[in-house]
């Protein structure tokens, strides 16, 4: 099974996250990561979902059944910028610190907190790069780690603005009367 990255624009209403997740759960797929937050347009959120799927097309179509879903794109094969952030609390006694500092510099990571025996490092980058850094730093002893899950944006002029999908928000769509 192939990993897919799906970007969804959704109306920000209570329960929308639960609906999207429920639809994926129903098919027994595991979500590898899911990131959601405000988009450029008020009232519209953008989600990035990473999941192993066989028939992505079908799931994408079913996502459209959800009333709040405006646009779903499978960007797996599109040129994208992908980012993820990880926070790591390391076991860092004074003797080990110079090595850790050197590594963070190589990876462009940031030291955001230093305690008596600990350091908190912030690492942002492509998911592969973040993973690399984690692998390298793990031997020093990671006490806690948190990852945001990836967010993905299509490069260049392609991709979808939220505005395209909210402009016709007002008024009823066509209603075809049911004949007997």
């Amino acid at each position, binding site marked *: 099974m192939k990993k897919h990255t799906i970007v969804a624009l959704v*109306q920000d209403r209570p329960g929308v996250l639960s609906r999207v997740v429920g639809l994926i759960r129903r098919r027994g797929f595991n979500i590898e990561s899911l990131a959601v937050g405000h988009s450029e347009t008020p009232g519209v959120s953008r989600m990035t979902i990473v999941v192993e799927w066989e028939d992505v097309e079908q799931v994408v*179509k079913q996502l*459209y059944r959800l*009333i709040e879903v405006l646009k779903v794109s499978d960007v797996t094969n599109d040129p994208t910028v992908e980012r993820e952030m990880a926070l790591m609390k390391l076991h860092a006694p004074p003797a080990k610190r110079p090595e850790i500092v050197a590594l963070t510099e190589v990876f462009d990571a940031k030291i955001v907190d230093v305690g008596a025996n600990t350091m908190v490092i912030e690492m942002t980058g492509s998911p592969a790069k973040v993973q690399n850094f984690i692998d390298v730093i793990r031997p020093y002893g990671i006490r806690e780690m948190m990852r945001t899950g990836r967010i993905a944006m299509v490069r260049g002029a392609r991709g979808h603005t939220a505005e395209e*999908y909210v402009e016709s928000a*007002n008024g009823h*769509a066509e*209603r075809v009367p049911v004949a*007997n």
Partner: protein
Amino acid sequence: MSEKRTGAQVMCEALIRNGVEVMFGIPGGAIMPFYYAMWDYRDKLRHVLCRHEQGAGHAAEGYARATGRLGVCIGTSGPGATNLVTAIADAMMDSTPILAITGQVASHVLGKDAFQETDITGITMPITKHNYLVKRAEDLPYVFEEAIYIATTGRPGPVLIDVTKDAQQATIVPDWNIKLDLPGYKPNYRPNLKQVREAIKLILSAKKPLIIAGHGVIMSGAVEELRAFAERTRIPVITTLHGIGAFPEDHPLSIGMPGMHGWVHVNRAIQECDVLFNIGGRFDDRVTGKASTFAPNAKVIHVDIDPSEIGKNVKVTVPIVADARLALQAFLNEFPPDREAFAELHGHASDWMEHIREMQAKHQPKQQYFNRADTENMSLPPHDVYAALTKALNSRGNYRVVTDVGQHQMWAAQLIDWYRPRTHITSGGAGTMGFALPAALGVAIACPNDTVWVICGDGGFQMTNQEMATIVQEGIKNVKVAVINNGYLGMVRQWQELFENKRYSGTPLSGPDFAKLAEAYYWKGITVEHTSQVEAAIEEAYATDGPVLIDFRVEREVNVFPMVPQNKSISEMILESPHKS
């Protein structure tokens, strides 16, 4: 206009504004404010008190299925709401427009396991088209408007609104100036003409074309258009279980039902056809059998209002996302007036039809049940009931038939002659036993001038038979019940007989004396044990001015044939029991 109203009054007015006239439900603590308000609107909003919320849900479905209008059901919080769940799931599977209204505990105790609290919006998320939790009375006008719009448009379906008790009680000045904000919900009704022309090209190139008509034809009111299209092209027409009535079975182009209990000639025709035009059906697995082996030679044209149905089970050559009626109108408009092309198509179609009729004659579909040697020593073969019922329906007209789930349901689909839309109502997608009687209650209220026949198994009838009391309390007289009483969960027993070496595990079934049970509910009850009594019993049912139940004690171990075993190709049909007892 800008007078003060309680939330509960707003709910009533929102329903009335949307043309609702009848609601089916049961009150309880969390929904009491709504019932309190309802009293003032009782001239316009009729409330039907059911005996179980599942019955209320099915009654709403029956009302919707008989009319195409919104059905409404009501339950209180907790168990009242969860009792609605089966009917909501049933409506989801069969695209039935119903609105379920549930009371919820007060907003300040939400999520604290208050008395009779259940998270009904959470529970019904996957089985509703959409649902809402309303905590503020101010939101009620908008939510009701949007909910009803969603339930009744596009591919219809169930919508649930859960209203906290305090939102029902709060006093507000409702704002009825509503503009729906639904950027993500834009059903596509009009077909893409390029696709329609593509499909027409395919049809004109066909030598063995078939039309398969589904529920969408009935829901969109496309029956006339379908008939015109079939007659113009002379393509044979199949009707699915939910497509029954979309095309009259006495029409020379009608060939019958496909699928698990479809006719041999229909399934064979599907396997042979080169172009399959599906209008408003969803290629359910009960139609396709093992999908990968379905219609192996066919290019498929699929018209469906729901894009997620297209290509889901069967590969499609020309997808058309549209309302079935508007699509067929486009086909009729776009069909070229090219006589030569037509002549060729007509030539092929009539050879093809001849071939299908030959297959049909060989297998004698309906006759295989009747006049058979092995039914001779049965005192009441089930088919004799269907023969007599069909005769009565045909001679008297003005009927609706509601069937439950099991063998009796398949026999009804196979053996009764169907002519008109919305005369055959059943639980198809979910296969919900216990559907028929409560659904018939809704049908009877919607169609007071029709005789509403319930055809039900002895198993399913015992799941919801308490609605007999509702029918009496409402003064409903046009419901007549035929219990096809075989003393088994018959359809399951049939599978056990055919595939599990007759291990009748959990299928022999006793019941009450159904006629006496009916009498206890102040119905007329009749028991029939022999073929010779069948016609008289049906006559008596018609002659009786009130609800009647006939307990048809049929031969116990009769099977529904033909049958395609589950997940087998529809080419592999079983035509009779391998072991005759």
